[in-house]
């Protein structure tokens, strides 16, 4: 009886794992391609490693903003574990706080896009405010796994 119960429980866990593997993979990819890659490009502009291009800067900020618009939807119940997720259980314990952090991030991005930073110094200031969101959100809502 116990064995049967364990078997069913294991199957259910596996199934829910598969069902949410796409949410986990999607949010990991979004984080990498829309946040990490764009931030990398922006820092190169700010440091002068890439010749400054105001239009490309706004494009990268916009890609980060629109590309992560649905990020908050990628944490459905059941996607707490599996797929090497580094999401902290605190996301589900405090979903309102998590969503509020995303609203602030997107608000800072909207302001950055509206400001259309015209040179390296202006972009540096913008990245300070936008980039602070990366750390503060990870501080509360991510755990290390490696």
């Amino acid at each position: 009886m116990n064995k049967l119960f364990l078997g069913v429980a294991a199957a259910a866990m596996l199934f829910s794992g598969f069902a949410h593997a796409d949410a986990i993979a999607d949010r990991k990819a979004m984080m990498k391609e829309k946040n990490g890659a764009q931030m990398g490009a922006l820092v190169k502009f700010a440091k002068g490693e890439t010749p400054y291009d105001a239009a490309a800067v706004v494009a990268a900020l916009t890609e980060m903003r629109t590309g992560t618009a649905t990020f908050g939807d990628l944490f459905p119940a059941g996607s707490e574990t599996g797929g090497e997720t580094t999401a902290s259980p605190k996301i589900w314990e405090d979903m309102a706080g998590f969503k509020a952090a995303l609203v602030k991030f997107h608000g800072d991005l909207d302001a950055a896009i509206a400001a259309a930073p015209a040179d390296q110094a202006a972009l540096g200031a913008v990245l300070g405010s936008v980039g602070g969101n990366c750390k503060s959100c990870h501080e509360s809502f991510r755990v290390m796994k490696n």
Partner: protein
Amino acid sequence: MRKTAAAMVFLAIAAAVIFYVLTIPSRLDRELLASIDAGDPLKGERIFWAGGCASCHAEKGSKGDARKLLGGGLALATPFGTFHAPNISPDKGSGIGEWSGEDFANAMLKGVSPNGSHYYPAFPFTSYARMEVSDIADLWAYMKSLPAVSRPNLAHELPLPFQLRRGLGLWKLLFLSDQDIAGIDASNPKLALGQYLVEGPGHCGECHTPRNLIGGADKARWLGGGPAPEGNGRIPNITSGGKNISVWSETDIVNYLETGFTPDFDAVGGSMVEVQENLSRLTAQDREAIAAYLKALPAQR
């Protein structure tokens, strides 16, 4: 029969005496501390950030100058119970305003309180024991210059037998040492500075080195990472056997410690955020020394 009973009593008394002697909280030689009250507060600020004092003793989540308000408050949940970081601001009632420089040095280097009892190693004196007395003096001068915060301490929540501090004397015999840990080229001043910052004030090993069953650092796996003391995550291996340090250059490590961004623009998270923000206040030379030391460490798998 009577002989046996007498022998048992004798053995019990002998054991009690041995325990008493072995667990006496030992204080530092006063001569060693002659310069303890002649510290430089400006130099002490660097040691304050290197030591990460604010991470436990300032209000959680505070920023900027609020990091210098050391009223305590962090609750540290461990397998041995919950520890509450005390008030170490210069407040006379609830803080350490009545302490002498000698008291401070004995707390930092010996894990002994002014009234002569052992501190729990949740306070990382096991690392601070490697610090130079001159740095302790500078830190003391700096800490006395910070604002007093009036906030009573909370008692630790520990089960028996951990409520009995005296037993920590035995633990200290096993795990308290002022000797260097990693075998690296100490004649290289950059590596020596990195070793000092990481193994001493930085107390990196307190989280990044796994602990044995009785809570001592497993020095054979120095900085090899392990289960997170809190939550369900893992603390990364920060030797070149680890996933990140194996591929990051020294410049990448320096950049991470300064800005919080990894080479592929992932951002620092969890309890490392506060550590990184503290380390960003050190000199560039300090961060370069830390990076060089980490790359020079024997790789842990």
